[in-house]
């Protein structure tokens, strides 16, 4: 279990190897990578800047990760979230979950992303070609995505 907040990019293969090398108890590894889209609401963006709350951000990510480990039998997990100025196509976030079987890994990865999006203190600001910029609004759908995790994990796919 670990979480990292960093400005540097990450390499998915390297991160998976670090979690799974010399392990024979893992039967499934799921990764989710979030990347910067080149447009927002149909209009192009030139960059996206991520602000965070040093200390609280890491604590919230660790709390969310601990919750996932309490709900599913995970062999290993990792959350990496980037901060600072990013550009279209850049990586933003990486979630890796490993378990003996795939269902736990799939569900835990989705749970981590849903919880991270509405709990971890990060804020995105988008810049447009004309030099203007604006803060991204929180989406209702992200809050709604949390609702299903109120159920037990086995019913989460409903």
């Amino acid at each position: 279990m670990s979480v990292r907040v960093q400005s540097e990019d990450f390499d998915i293969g390297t991160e998976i190897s670090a979690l799974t090398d010399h392990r024979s108890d893992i039967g499934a590894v799921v990764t989710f990578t979030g990347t910067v889209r080149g447009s927002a609401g149909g209009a192009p963006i030139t960059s996206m800047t991520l602000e965070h709350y040093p200390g609280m951000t890491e604590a919230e990510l660790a709390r969310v990760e601990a919750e996932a480990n309490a709900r599913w039998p995970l062999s290993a997990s990792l959350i990496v979230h980037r901060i600072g100025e990013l550009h279209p196509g850049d990586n933003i976030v990486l979630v890796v979950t490993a378990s003996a079987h795939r269902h736990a890994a799939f569900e835990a990865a989705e749970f981590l992303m849903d919880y991270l999006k509405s709990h971890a203190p990060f804020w995105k600001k988008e810049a447009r070609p004309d030099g203007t910029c604006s803060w991204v609004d929180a989406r209702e759908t992200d809050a709604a995505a949390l609702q299903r995790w109120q159920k037990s994990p086995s019913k989460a796919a409903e």
Partner: protein
Amino acid sequence: MTSGQNTNTITLRYFAWVREKVGLAEEEVSLPADVATVGELMKWLQARGETYQAAFAKPEIIRAALDQTHARADAPIGSAREIAFFPPVTGG
């Protein structure tokens, strides 16, 4: 900053557009004795000037954290040393 017997000096931190509207990333304030909850603190901040008025015009959409833990508007400030205000989060 002085901290007398009847004052409670705390650190306020602001993030994203709350920070931009207030014009500060953080500051130390002495809380009046009658400010007991996060919501009351937002009301008190609103009255501190135009920038605060702009930042806290819609307190219902602003999120807060007490000592780096999410807190609702009705949460008692208690002995918290650091209170943060920010928009709904948009990471991931």
